[in-house]
């Protein structure tokens, strides 16, 4: 099995794992973490495909590799913004729940005062 195929399959598994964690973990920070696992799986899959495009004396297709660098930086920006939103929610309410029942209850409580 070539490195491209092996890590391509590995990437497919990482995407599945990340998706599972994103749905199942109730804590928003764990969702962000799972989303990053998901994202790195997507990058790795793309990288495995770029590796197959090795030609002209280059170890891989440089166009997808350059797009990957852009992608990793943009993923970092999105993660940073998500974490900042989460920390602000925590500072504001003392909790980070995304559950609509709990949020609705909290809304009713403040409405009653």
């Amino acid at each position: 099995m070539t490195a491209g195929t092996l890590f391509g399959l590995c990437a497919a598994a990482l995407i599945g794992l990340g998706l599972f964690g994103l749905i199942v973990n109730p804590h928003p920070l764990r969702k962000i973490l799972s989303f990053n696992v998901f994202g790195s799986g997507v990058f790795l899959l793309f990288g495995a495909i770029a590796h197959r495009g090795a030609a002209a004396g280059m170890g891989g297709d440089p166009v997808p590799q350059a797009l990957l660098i852009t992608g990793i930086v943009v993923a970092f920006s999105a993660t940073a913004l998500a974490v900042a939103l989460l920390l602000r929610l925590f500072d504001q309410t003392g909790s980070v729940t995304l559950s609509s029942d709990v949020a609705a209850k909290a809304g009713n409580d403040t409405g009653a005062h």
Partner: protein
Amino acid sequence: MIEILNFGLAALILGLAVWAVVAREAPAAVVGFIVYGLLLTLVWLQLQGIDVALTEAAIGGGLTGVLLINAAVRLRSTESTARAQRPSASTRWLAAALSATVTGALAICVLALPEPAPTLAPEVLANIAVTEVGNPITAVLLAFRAMDTLLEAIVLLFALIGVWSLAPDRAWGGRPGLLQQADPNGMLDYVARVLPPIGIVAGIYIFWIGADYPGGKFQGATLLAAMWLLVMMAGLADAPPISRSWLRWLLVAGPLAFIAVGVVGAVTAGAFLSYPHGFAKTLILVIEFALMPTLTLILGLILLGAPLRGEAA
């Protein structure tokens, strides 16, 4: 031999990804994720993507890891409540089935990829001489697909503005991060005095050789930002208040210079971001030099987060 190592590497990565998803405590999961990011760097080397490996090590594993571990420690008290809201068994089974389906479909695609693989490498090789840079990745990032890089720099800037806009009203315009007390006899103080000179030289070197060898402004800027953060963590310097106009000018200088070069191209070479003949290398260097301080500041400030204290404190 290398095949066995690759299999081992893939197994380790999958194991760490499982750990990052299922570990009970968030800080433990994040530590798993950081190790996972470092091992992913080795995978990128195996896939001949040295530039991607450097970016993954610096940003994917390093900066994201620091960001998440800081948040995990601050949100520690919320974990038990969240654990009580675990979805029901049927939801979990459905999620597992969905994830397995996605993985299976992707695996089939990986095994059914066309032969020979489509590639743009010959085109890059045929046109790289025009740009006068030696590293094909840099040629793609700053000439063939320069628009992506411009938008990426702007996305980073917008992310920072987004993070800042989450500041509480009383702290708006103040300093981000916590005030650290310097301990003149501490280990951190010592490291923060000894390491930055070496780190800064290494960062500028990675930036400088990026034109011809693996490296570049993002990887170099991350290293410089890390050195800056180390000095601030040790309490040897404080973060600048975000209301300073010199800071704001530096933050937009990189993208503005990039756009200016693009407009020059529109006037002299007929298209936005195209370079007039013979000036490609010069203009690429102008963009890189203008982006470097901007990227260093943005990456450092994003990690510090929203301002939480006034200017004086």
